[in-house]
């Protein structure tokens, strides 16, 4: 159903270099707006590329430029090596807008026929593909119903189906799960994952960071028209562990050798007197403890583990808390905003 004739994974499908876009003011309001200030990014074949950013960051402008709807002020952008906006580039792109608007006289099937024709498909091909996609997005039984009666979720599914109509190599999805209930979101997410597995390149713009975290292989964070971070989820969060470590340990009275438990733990963990350390008893007999301390590097964690073990402390659990995408996002965006 989802064809696998996707492009080579090594190929840069989306290639954006130094892209700038300035919206000039009108006759009555001369203030111009710099929507993009030199954005550069690439998305390779088979990737699910997430574009993140707060409102007004320039995400929509970037997508519009990729689709050829808006012309850049400077810089360059290409899709499949073709200049954005060219018919050759657009022929290989499927687009799901944020709020799809389908004329009220359409049914799901007639809308797919219409968009299929706009993509230059032959009638037979349209009929065959419509059946497949309606089935895929779960509109098979309601394909002859007027879209007037469609819910937001059904619209989104129809939008996804139309974006896939001409079997594009690149899918640009603008908030694909927006307005969907959890079940719907899950279904759409599954479709995207299947597309990803089929080798399609997906350019995803979403506010739902958890979703991006789950689906995307790479992300770019856009703020104030600039890329403030890009790479894989791991790359974005690697080397930037949060520093807080939680340990569940077992140590009896002998281990402390008459000293105070908190003092001993501070010593073994290599913490200064002023360093933050929480010690809580996990049981009522004073053997099991939960330690929560700041250890901001792997070396310190390793050294702490060594010292604990030498002192005869059993380590039941150790959890070094890493940064979430949300943490990274907030940190990068805050830094960008502060810089601007």
């Amino acid at each position, binding site marked *: 159903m989802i064809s696998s004739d996707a492009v080579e994974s090594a190929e840069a499908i989306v290639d954006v270099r130094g892209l700038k876009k300035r*919206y000039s003011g009108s006759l009555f309001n001369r203030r111009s707006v710099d929507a993009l200030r030199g954005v550069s990014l690439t998305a390779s074949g088979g990737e699910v590329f997430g574009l993140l950013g707060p409102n007004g960051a320039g995400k929509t402008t970037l997508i*519009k430029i990729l*689709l*050829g*709807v*808006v*012309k850049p002020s400077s810089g360059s952008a290409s899709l499949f090596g073709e200049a954005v906006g060219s*018919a*050759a580039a*657009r*022929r290989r*792109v499927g*687009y799901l*807008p*944020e*709020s*799809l*608007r*389908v*004329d*009220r*006289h359409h049914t799901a099937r*007639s809308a797919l026929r*219409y*968009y299929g*024709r*706009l*993509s*230059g498909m032959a009638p037979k091909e349209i009929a065959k593909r419509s059946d497949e996609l309606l089935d895929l997005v779960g509109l098979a039984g309601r394909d002859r119903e007027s879209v007037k009666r469609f819910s937001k979720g059904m619209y989104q599914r129809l939008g996804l189906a*139309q974006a896939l109509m001409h079997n594009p190599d690149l899918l*640009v999805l603008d908030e694909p799960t927006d307005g969907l209930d959890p079940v719907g979101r899950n279904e759409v997410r599954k479709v995207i994952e299947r597309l990803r597995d089929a080798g399609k390149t997906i350019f995803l713009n979403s506010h739902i960071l958890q979703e991006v975290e789950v689906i995307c292989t790479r992300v770019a964070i856009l703020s104030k028209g600039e890329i403030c971070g890009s790479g894989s989820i791991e790359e974005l969060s690697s080397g930037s562990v949060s520093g807080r470590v939680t340990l569940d340990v077992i140590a009896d009275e002998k281990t402390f050798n008459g000293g105070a438990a908190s003092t001993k733990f501070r010593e073994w963990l290599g913490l200064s007197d002023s360093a933050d350390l929480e010690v809580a008893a996990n049981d009522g007999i004073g053997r099991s403890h939960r330690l929560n301390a700041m250890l901001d590097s792997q070396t310190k964690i390793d050294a702490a583990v060594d010292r604990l073990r030498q002192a005869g402390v059993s380590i039941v659990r150790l959890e070094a808390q890493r940064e979430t995408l949300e943490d990274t996002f907030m940190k990068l965006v805050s830094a960008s905003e502060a810089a601007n």
Partner: protein
Amino acid sequence: MRQYAAVIRDSFHAALTSRVLWIAFVAIWLLLAALSPIGYREDFTTRFRSSDFSNGTRMKAMLAQGLATPDQEASATRNLANAMPEDLRRQLERVAEGEEVRIQLRELASALNGMLDDESWYDTEAWKPTLRFKELRELDELPDEGLDESTRRRRARLRIEAAFPGVFETRSSRSVLLTYASMDFPADLAIDKTQFSSLINQYVFPLIIDWLLGFILIFLGILVTASIIPDMLQPGSLHLLLSKPISRTLLLLSKFLGGCAFVLLCVTQLVIGLYLVAGLRLDVWNLRLLWCIPVSVFLFSVFFSVSTLAGLRWRSPILAIGVTTIFGTICFVTGILGGLSDGFIRTPDQVRGLALAGENVFAATDGGGLKRFDVEQNAWQEIFKSSAVNSDRILNPIPFGDDLVGTAVVRGGRFNPFGAGPLDLLVLNEAYDWEAEPSLRLPTATSRLFLGGDLVVSMNTSELAAASVQDLLQAAGETESDDEAEAEQADEGLLSKLSNMMGGATPGFSPVLPPQMAISKPRDLVFDPQGEWIIAISSGRLMRLEPSTENPTQRWTLRVERSLEGEASKQAKIAVSGNRLLVARSEAPLIILDAITLEPIGEPLPLSDSLIPDTVQPLGTGGRFALLTSDGRCRIIEPKDEAVTYEITQTLRQKEIEALHFHVATNQLLLAHHIDQIDFLDANDLSVKRAIRPSLAQWRLIDRYVLAPLRIIVPQTGELGEPISALISGKSAIVMNAPNGEEQVIRYDIARPILSCTIFLLVMLTMSCTYFATRDF
């Protein structure tokens, strides 16, 4: 192109789901259902109607004269006068006694209709001297027993018409009567089949198309389609469309074409419905009606182009409707200004007749004026003022010499062929700075003057009367005042007064037509420049008349006559060049005849049905002619092989020609075009020898440099009715009866509205496409 076809198809789909469209459909079906019971029936033309009279005064006088005719004399008019209802007879007796009695034409028509069923007034002997046309002669030969009621009534009508020559308009022998659900229309709408078809094609259809399609459907169409472009510009729709591999320009044009779907669907139903109703119910099958479909869509597209640009700019259907309404208002106001300009500035100055006296060029104008071209000033000098509100009518000037010109001003003659008050021939003399000097009195209702040799012939509603130029010049300046003339007329005998009422002789002008002969419309006349013959065509009958050698102002002799095939009621124009006579009739081929024997020569020469002959003039004496047609162009007709076969050899380059005049002495053809410009063409090689390009007065300058460009820039949507009329009727002009009784050819303005609308549409679409293609959305 599959993508763009999809956009257009989608717009059709969208239009079909519009509720307003279905309301419009239902309204159209109801209209067609209401029209479908209309029908007609055909019968002989029997009943008289007021509009059948071309000269009611003449009839009144003839009936009064009939009453005064002694009983022992056989007289058709006396028989008919006696058969009149009692009260009408009493009024006629008072007319015969010299009283001024007003008798309504309706009363006369009603009295005559009452006589159709009872022919006791008919007397073979009394009708012997009357001029009976072929149809009556044939009916008279049939036995009474074999005639049905309708035929008998027809024969009675023809007998009455024969008794009153010059009184009635020529009517077709068959008439149609409109019916509705098999019931006759309450109003008397009896017209002949040709007139009926013309009425439907030239008035009814254009009226329906103008109002239903040109106004209501366009307004509805704009209401429905104004949201197409703003809807397309909604982010969820536009960005998706623009992400497809299609051109923005073609996308917009496809949307635009698709938007026309609404009007196309409505117009197609309405026009095809009208076509079928007219064809099935009225037997008027006019495929040209289908032209209304593209023309109406084109008209709508002009308005829709404004709505499109406004929708693109402001993305609001309400604003798009508002801007389109403002645009419609501007078109309307410009149309009104254009109409005022035509009526008050251009038309009054338009040249209708030309005369050349020595070096002096005279022009009679549409505005009832007469003007002379002043070479030094390079401007027309008005002798009688041209004006839109002028109620007077000027007769075409005739040159009596290099410094003398004759004409006449019919007071109130623009709205009444008879005018008001006495009508004198006026002599204009250069020595008196072209001051008009009254000369002899012209017969009542004189409409044209002809000069031949030493004779001036006047033509009125039915008579020809002649006077010598010498007498006219002598009388100039010596005529008594109006009051004295009236007093003198009161002293004249009763019969003389009745004769005057009939448009007969006046003290200076003597009737020249043989007794019982009349020149009735449609008609035309050629007077030999040497005054040796007159060739006239009247109601499809050609006549050659020659004067008596002793006294040319006595009644002339009918030498030859010939009835032409075809519809007698069609307008006809004639001209003589050497010994060749050209007859040009509406919807008939041109005929060349021998001017002496009136025998046809060669094959008839076809002329496009869309062209109505306006004027024919000779080009010298070699059998060549210039034909002015309703499209404002002049065509040259020349002999091909030994003067037997004729052909249209060329069309002159001049356009918007209004009048032609061949000047014998200089062998030049004078051509009046573009209101009051004159070209003098050598009759042999048709090269322009002289051109008059007069300097313009203030209002004409405003018209040329302000209003005319404005009428090109602002599309003249209201004037598209004229191209529609032309397309439906297949004619380039319409022939109308002017209030003065003369037929007037009104040319359809086809090019300007189409040109202005096309230019505007292209400009608007270019602006819209450029905006859409270059704008970030």
